């Protein structure tokens, strides 16, 4: 569970208690962290208030004391305070509630409050939950993102229902803040039991390789309940969650790597749903031609290519922050900038499973599209999709239900939507991938595009079943349908463009669409097929 809640917002909204960080995009943070209980303090009441303040600050700043700090370091991890310092700009962090234990003690509670591992193993107490809630409320009010650095052993058994209540208080705030301010979780140690649901409710969950774990119950409980032998790493390590379960969105090498990347990632995001996506200074010309794209799609329609080549080609400075790079690799999602403006990119990946849509890729894509839509980030979709993956595994798994999520997400999105069909756009998958019919603002086709109900071979087998001359019919089908014209003459694609012009066109369209206003009918909330 979050040891630290760091919130950021524009500086003009913050005064007095908050510290200003960083850059013009101010980071303001409060923290609920790192307070240690020290019984002897209560014996020194004769000290002046000033002196008591000083001593408590010192004690708090040292976390669990030098020994505990060293123990944390030996595990290859940093203390909460070090982490916060790295995440934020120098001297920009001001801590909230450093003295919270006072109040707790006064109320005679078993005081241990936080999830900083150097202090009391970092399980959650009622007091700590309160600190987190306080920060989150504040963040919601001003419209500032929340970052949670999680390193927690779970609920404090000694505290019983109090700590469960604490969790629920946080969960509620995660849910209330969802779609209002971006919420990011960085898992930096074990995070087990109820604690895992807070990251699960946030927009992005990142992990640190080898030192972080997420699971409902640890290997010991697993062994006693299901008799499975499994290590922590296999059960809930970064590899498991980024490649198998899809719980985490990305993993980093170590604490420092993770925090520095988080800083980078942060710059893609708007402060809240009321702010537009950020625009940074850009040195890459918006009208740059990308000659390499003219040859990226192979001539044989069955040959794979790397969708990332296209994405890197069009993005500012070839920079692409990929989300879930190791999960459902048949779809690529992530953030990039176009002429300095943050965009979300969704692309089918022909290199993996021909870029088909299956359960996992649909869900991965849908969640990403919804994030972008919630936070005013334009969506650029690159389509090369042969269809949905057939088979019992997919049907039994509910591909209909899950595929509908991606369809739903694209259809409901009101942010600028630009679509480029690079090659195949077959069947229902064509509709799903941000088609004109789902309110795509600008839909392009490359000359290599084939918008059709299905590929030539399959189509001919159905239409001319049992007939001879299949090859001839196939050639005719290719001539008629395996090209961008049928869609273009109907206005389902707005233009057929030379691939090398793609960046130029998208940058221009984004400029025009910046003022796009579109609203869905009033509703309490939509009912996405979960």
């Amino acid at each position, binding site marked *: 569970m979050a040891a630290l809640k760091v919130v950021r917002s524009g500086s003009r909204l913050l005064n007095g208690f908050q510290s200003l960080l960083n850059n013009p995009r*101010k980071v303001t943070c409060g923290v609920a962290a790192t307070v240690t209980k020290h019984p002897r303090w209560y014996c020194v009441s004769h000290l002046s208030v000033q002196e008591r303040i000083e001593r408590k600050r010192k004690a708090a700043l040292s976390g669990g004391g030098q020994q505990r700090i060293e123990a944390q370091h030996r595990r290859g991890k940093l203390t909460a305070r070090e982490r916060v310092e790295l995440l934020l700009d120098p001297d920009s962090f001001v801590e909230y509630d450093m003295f919270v234990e006072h109040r707790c003690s006064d109320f005679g509670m078993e005081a241990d409050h936080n999830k900083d591992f150097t202090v009391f193993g970092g399980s959650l107490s009622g007091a700590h939950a309160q600190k987190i809630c306080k920060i989150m409320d504040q963040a919601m009010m001003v419209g500032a993102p929340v970052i949670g650095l999680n390193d927690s052993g779970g609920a404090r058994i000694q505290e019983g229902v109090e700590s469960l209540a604490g969790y629920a208080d946080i969960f509620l705030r995660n849910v209330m803040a969802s779609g209002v301010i971006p919420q990011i979780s960085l898992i930096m140690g074990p995070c087990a039991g109820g604690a895992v649901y807070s990251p699960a409710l946030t927009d992005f969950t990142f992990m640190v390789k080898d030192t972080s774990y997420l699971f409902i119950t640890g290997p010991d409980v697993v062994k006693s309940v299901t008799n499975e032998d499994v290590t922590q790493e296999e059960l809930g390590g970064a590899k498991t969650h980024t490649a198998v379960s899809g719980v985490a969105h990305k993993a980093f090498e170590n604490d420092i790597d993770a925090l*520095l990347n988080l800083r980078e990632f942060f710059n893609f995001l708007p402060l809240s749903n009321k702010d537009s996506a950020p625009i940074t200074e850009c040195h890459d010309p918006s009208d740059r031609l990308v*000659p390499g794209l003219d040859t990226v799609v192979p001539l044989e329609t069955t040959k794979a290519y790397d969708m990332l080549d296209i994405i890197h080609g069009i993005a500012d400075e070839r920079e692409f922050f990929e989300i879930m790079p190791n999960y459902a690799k048949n779809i690529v999602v992530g953030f990039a900038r176009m002429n300095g403006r943050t965009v979300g990119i969704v692309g089918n990946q022909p290199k993996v499973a021909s870029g088909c849509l299956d359960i996992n890729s649909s869900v991965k894509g849908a969640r990403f599209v919804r994030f972008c839509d919630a936070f005013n980030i334009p969506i650029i979709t690159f389509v090369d999709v042969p269809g949905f993956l057939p088979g019992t595994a997919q049907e039994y798994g509910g591909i209909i239900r899950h595929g509908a999520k991606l369809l739903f997400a694209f259809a409901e999105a009101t942010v600028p939507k630009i679509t480029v069909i690079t090659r195949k756009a077959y069947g229902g998958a064509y509709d799903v991938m941000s088609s004109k019919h789902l309110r795509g603002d600008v839909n392009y086709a490359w000359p290599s595009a084939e918008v059709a109900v299905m590929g030539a071979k399959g189509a001919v087998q159905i239409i001319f079943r049992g007939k001879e001359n299949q090859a001839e019919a196939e050639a005719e089908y290719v001539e008629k349908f395996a090209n961008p014209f049928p869609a273009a003459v109907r206005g389902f694609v707005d233009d057929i463009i030379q691939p090398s012009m793609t960046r130029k066109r998208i940058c221009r369209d984004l400029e025009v669409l910046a003022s796009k206003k579109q609203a869905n009918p009033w509703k309490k909330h939509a009912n996405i097929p979960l």
Partner: protein
Amino acid sequence: MASHRVTPALQRVLFTWQHVAWKSRCCAVASHAKYSTVYDPAEKTFDKILIANRGEIACRVMKTCKKMGIKTVAVHSDVDSSAVHVKMADEAVCVGPAPTNKSYLNMDAILEAARQTGAQAVHPGYGFLSENKEFARRLAAHGVTFIGPDTHAIQAMGDKIESKLIAKKAKVNTIPGFDGVVKDAEEAVRIAGEIGYPVMIKASAGGGGKGMRIAWNDEETREGFRFSSQEAASSFGDDRLLIEKFIDNPRHIEIQVLADKHGNALWLNERECSIQRRNQKVVEEAPSTFLDPETRCAMGEQAVSLAKAVQYSSAGTVEFLVDSKKNFYFLEMNTRLQVEHPITECITGLDLVQQMIRVAKGYPLQHRQADIPINGWAIESRVYAEDPYKSFGLPSIGRLSQYQEPVNIPAVRVDSGIQEGSDISIYYDPMISKLVTYGSTRAEALQRMEEALDNYVIRGVTHNIPLLREIITHPRFVSGDISTKFLQEVYPEGFKGHQLSDSERWELLATAVALFVAAQLRSQRFLGNLRVSSSQQEQRRWELSVELEKGVHAVTVSRSGSTYAVDLDGKRVDVSSEWNLASALLPVTVNGTQRTVQCLSRSASGEIDLQYLGTSYKLRVLSKLAAALNKHMPEKVPEDTSSILRSPMPGSVVAVSVKAGDTVAEGQEICVIEAMKMQNSMTAAKTAKVKSVHCNAGDTVGEGDLLVELE
């Protein structure tokens, strides 16, 4: 980046403009767009020429055809259908699938293409069918002119045994050796014993270093015989081998000849091609620093007399080995246009392709021997898609994600057949381009080469620019003290990249740090965000740490304008630049010295890869705090590679010599990988038992694929 990323069409325009501008300053110079020979439109040659080749040489031939007003026909394999040479031609015909024996060596298909398109002549380029007498004969039978010598000369010179006999007869100095085909490995050992070690075993039909091995003892002779015959069979379809005395430490100097069908022949001076790896040329120059006018003249005259002895017509090259006493021995004659012909064009002003076309049409030569000048100095670097850190260059493949030729520098000629987005595939030669620079003196040409290499942007494939830049700046090369052993002697342990001097190290560190700060500052400049305070002062001073090759340095940086003053262990280095962070090229001024550095990558975690002085360096810049905490980060142990054999390059497995359970000795051959027609023996890194074998003969493997595991 903006100004550098231009369309291919625009690039060509720039290229032409470039040379026009340059011509006005230096008219004696022959650059690509400027030859001293005239293109006489009244001189009728051919209406349409088919170029039976691919890549840069096909493009090169087409350029001259266009100047002469001749229509061009490209042939291509299916994977090459969007290649540059195809786009450049007026017509293109697909002649088969990717493997060369089914496409570019497919005579039937090429003859058919010539018939279909009505091409009157065929230029074969180099390699492929260029020295195939059968091809020349069949073309003639179809009434199509072969732009090259006639079949008799190709046959006579194509066979190394016969060519040696003819050379002897023509009073050309030859190397002692066995004038016959060697039957088997044991005979090879016997003959080698007679000639005396070291000996050279080579394919009778060979060229370009393929199918060629040097042996210093009986064991190596047997091994060399096996490799050479396999390579010869796969490259030329002819596994006949011959053996001759190997001249240790020689120079490889060749004479360009040009002859017509009327018995006239000229020598167009020499090319020094001693810098080689595995008998393939890497850097060439014209003229040679080594030859005096007398030797040059003697070599030239022998070359011409050989050409005349076989009634040679067209352009050809007579290769010589030259020992330290300026004794020269005939090696072979290449009856085609050479890869490195541009340097001869630079110093003589002749357009060799034009001359070949004229001669093929039957015109007499335009020049007399006295007309052939040596104007200035030209150097050619062969830029390859290969990893120079592995045996001076093992092939690498991939997609050129970014590609930019340094044609904005004066007196630079780049002959290439690829562009941004092209694929370097396993099917063909991994050459990216020939980078040629010219100067009125050797020093000037070298200086330009340095600059051109620094400004050459190649991303997506591993390339040999680090090695090229080291060669052309090495004191031994600069002084002209070279031989075919140059690379092995200068880099006995293998090429390790540029070795930084202290001051270079400071320069590099400071550049990385300044780039880091410039990027940090930019990432804080948000436009159009309403909730941004305008009162915030931009940071002016940074305390950072920079790491290079395990050395960590504390630095402080302060900024004034676009100049960063970097304080590095008490040394002050000023770095200034425009800091265009999107450009692949980063021109910086470091303590007053101008340089072009390339930023290969920058990551959020402070890693910066810079290409500096040709070599790429991995640096890491961190804040002081992050650097201090970095020591607590766990060290991730890389896998022990001594027990794992991975394919160093993409290719196909020709043979696997071990099976699971075998015990192998360190250095013992485990398997053979063939890539770009070269066979590479993979050997065991330690003595151990074979745990498992993950490849079979005939498999196609990618770079880094697991081949064999040892225990």
